[in-house]
């Protein structure tokens, strides 16, 4: 009896190696497939990890806002706002005093002592204005301390082992808040008193003498604001008396505070805010400046190299710009902080440049410094891709246009550029993507002040220091606690950045498809 034929009837066999070889082929394919699987898995995991760490932020932020409400920090906020307004009024009065002293020094031949003597009534006025709001400020500070204490106590309570084990009841906010809410009883009387005091002081101010009419006018304006402030005092009472500590914080609030919050404040004794708006506007402002430089330069250079330049110029310019792309960003940032920042400051201090808004610059490192250096990052990307796009325009277009008698520039303007528009738009978008994601340059050169740039000041906004999304991650990542709200907030910024660059990439690809020429 013969052995049954175990070979599969149609198995591929060969004289050298037979089935072993087929198995070997399979193993090789498996190896490559496994590698591809691992790579794709890793790249997918990156996204999942980012999303997991980032989205956890909202739960924590909601808890954060809940404590803010329950501990009464929100309750005290209107008072703190008033304290702040009063402080600002006082500061502006001091500014006026400084200016008066300067005006007196310029116009008269008085020495310092005499000027001080002349300004004594003003000093007294400012002092009286400060003192008039004393009870209000006192109350605001006391209540702030109280609320902060409640918050600390609540956090400590919730961190104890017993509470986590379910052995201790929830923190009793109600009792803790009692002394805080009790303030409402005395507030109306306090408001009346402070308002009367303020009015009295402000009305006395009309006897002051001023060095010139401009100062007098500025002071009159200030007085009106002070009177309005006094009239508005009961507004805070209204707000505080209708405040409900037990109103639940909705989930969308945690999102909206992050997405539209205008404050990014960490490690403060009062309340941490994670609002991405200052960072987002900073990133966009810096990118806008960079593109304002890079788009005309990059596209202009691409048109020149592709349409006009001689072979020799082409062979010089193209590799040179590709070489610029290879300069590491930290080197550009270093150049910006050490050389360009100083150069820009000196340049802006030249007398005849002062017509330019924002010159002379207040800060050496600002959005403009970072924007110029970022332009150098964006230019190679825009140039290379735009040049490719121009190269891809069929030769016949150009020849047909020239044959019809169009000049070289007419051909470029009316035929070649429209034909290459899809590639150019996508080049600009990809340049934007590179600039938005750039970290070291903005971290070093942008000035890192976390505030929404003051757009009311017109073009001056370009010379203000800003902070960016990439910058904040690089700056604060080293100082966070794993899994904490700050850690997750930074991941959320990273996630936002991720989504933003993906969107830009997607738009760039769409632009290529949408604006593509019909094939002939």
């Amino acid at each position, binding site marked *: 009896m013969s052995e049954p034929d175990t070979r599969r009837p149609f198995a591929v066999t060969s004289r050298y190696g037979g089935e072993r070889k087929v198995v070997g082929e399979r193993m090789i394919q498996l190896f490559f497939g496994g590698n591809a699987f691992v790579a794709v898995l890793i790249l997918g995991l990156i996204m999942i*990890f980012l999303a997991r*760490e980032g989205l956890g932020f909202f739960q924590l932020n909601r808890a954060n806002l809940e404590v803010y409400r329950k501990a009464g920090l929100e309750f005290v906020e209107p008072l703190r706002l008033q304290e702040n307004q009063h402080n600002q009024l006082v500061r502006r009065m001091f500014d006026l005093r400084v200016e008066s002293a300067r005006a007196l020094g310029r116009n008269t031949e008085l020495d310092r002592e005499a000027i001080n003597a002349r300004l004594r009534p003003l000093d007294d006025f400012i002092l009286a204005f400060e003192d008039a709001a004393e009870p209000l400020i006192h109350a605001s500070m006391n209540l702030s301390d109280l609320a902060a204490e409640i918050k600390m106590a609540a956090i400590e309570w919730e961190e104890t082992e017993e509470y986590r084990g379910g052995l201790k009841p929830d923190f009793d906010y109600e009792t803790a808040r009692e002394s805080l809410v009790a303030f409402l009883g005395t507030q109306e009387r306090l408001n009346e008193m402070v308002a009367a005091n303020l009015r009295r002081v402000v009305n006395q101010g009309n006897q002051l003498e001023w060095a010139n009419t401009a100062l007098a006018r500025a002071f009159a304006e200030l007085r009106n604001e002070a009177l309005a402030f006094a009239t508005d005092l009961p507004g805070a009472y209204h707000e505080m008396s209708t405040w409900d500590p037990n109103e639940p914080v909705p989930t969308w609030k945690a999102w909206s505070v992050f997405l539209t919050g205008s404050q990014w404040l960490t490690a403060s004794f009062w309340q941490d805010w994670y609002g991405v708006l200052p960072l987002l506007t900073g990133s966009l402002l810096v990118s806008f400046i960079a593109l304002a430089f890079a788009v005309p330069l990059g596209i202009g250079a691409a048109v020149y190299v592709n349409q006009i330049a001689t072979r020799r110029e082409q062979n010089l310019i193209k590799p040179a710009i590709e070489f610029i792309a290879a300069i*590491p960003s930290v080197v550009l940032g270093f150049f910006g902080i050490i050389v360009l920042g100083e150069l820009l400051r000196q340049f802006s201090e030249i007398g005849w440049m002062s017509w330019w808004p924002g010159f002379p610059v207040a800060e050496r490192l600002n959005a403009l410094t970072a924007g110029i250096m970022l332009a150098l990052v964006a230019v190679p990307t825009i140039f290379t891709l735009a040049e490719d796009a121009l190269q891809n325009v069929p030769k016949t277009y150009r020849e047909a246009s020239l044959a019809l008698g169009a000049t070289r520039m007419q051909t470029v303007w009316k035929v070649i550029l429209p034909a290459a528009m899809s590639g150019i738009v996508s080049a600009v978008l990809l340049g934007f993507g590179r600039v938005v*994601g750039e970290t070291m340059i903005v971290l070093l050169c942008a000035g890192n002040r976390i505030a929404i740039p003051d757009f009311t000041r017109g073009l001056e906004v370009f010379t203000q220091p800003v902070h960016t999304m990439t910058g904040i991650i690089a700056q604060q990542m080293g100082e966070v606690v794993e899994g904490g709200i700050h850690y997750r907030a930074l991941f959320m910024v990273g996630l936002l*950045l991720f989504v933003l660059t993906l969107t830009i990439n997607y738009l760039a690809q769409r632009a290529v498809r949408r604006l593509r020429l019909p094939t002939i």
Partner: protein
Amino acid sequence: MATPAEQFRRQSTAIQRREKVIVFFLRASAWIILLAGATVLGTIAWKGAGTLLQPNFPFINITFLAEAPQTLHVFELDGETVEMSDQDFREFRAKLAEEAAASGESAIVPDSTSYVYAAGGIFPNIVGTLLLVAGSMSIALGLGIATAIYLSEYARQGSTVRFIRLAILNLAGVPSVVFGLFGFGMFVLFFGWNVSLIAGWFTLAFMVLPVVITASEEALRAVPQGFREGALALGATRWQTIRRAVIPHALPGILTSSILGIARVAGETAPIMFTAAFIMRDKLPWEVDRWFDFFFQGVMALPYHIYVVSSKIPQNEYSARVQFGTALVFVLLVAVIASASLFLRHRIRARQRW
């Protein structure tokens, strides 16, 4: 009065004049870019040369390239300003104390001003950067090229593969700081590797992986289909075809892209800031007690050093010296890598003909 010759002279029309102005602006934009690049590199080269070069033999400042960063002490001695590195200064002080003890007097130690990082060199930084590049590129190239081969040669070209390809292409545009964030959260904290070489390797490798995959696949797909068909028709197996008929032709393209990847990995700062880089470390990477400690140690790196000396320490003439010197060495390193890749690509383009 016009001479007859002038009547036939070409008159420039308004259109031609406008044309000239436009061409002038286009040309200017090209040269402004080059000028800006040259200014940056020129400044760094000019000022960095003061640190890197020296007027007498061997003309290159060996100390700067071969020593670790040290604190610089500057003090007045006999009416002259003396600069000493921390190590020298300590020996000098010990010698003074010895002499004083011998003569029975109390030692007079000169008051010195100290400047951090301004003395010594950047040897550990160079080593650290090279280690980071070598490790991360090994991971990225191994994984990336294998993935590219699978995607372009083995996988069925369906919608799944198209989607994966698109996802990878898009990931190549994600900012490096996001990868840094991921590396920090995943490797440093979640895996507990702390700030270490291995965490930096994986972070950088994953950052550059999409670039390597995309570029390698492009090189593979540029090989004409006929090559594969010819080999298969001759009875070669799939793997034989790939090894003998595809990879040799795609290899130059793959190499070029991988060298560009090296330049990118060497130049990035954000991903290593909180995964692998130390501001200061006394020991060199190979001075470890147990062999596996090698992977779990932080290193000093050139880009991070530039960041630290240009923003974290007070600025003065002594810090400027180390700043520009480090920047020049770093730029030279990246330039060598980048120009190697440009040269290689040029050679390949000239040789490729099918």
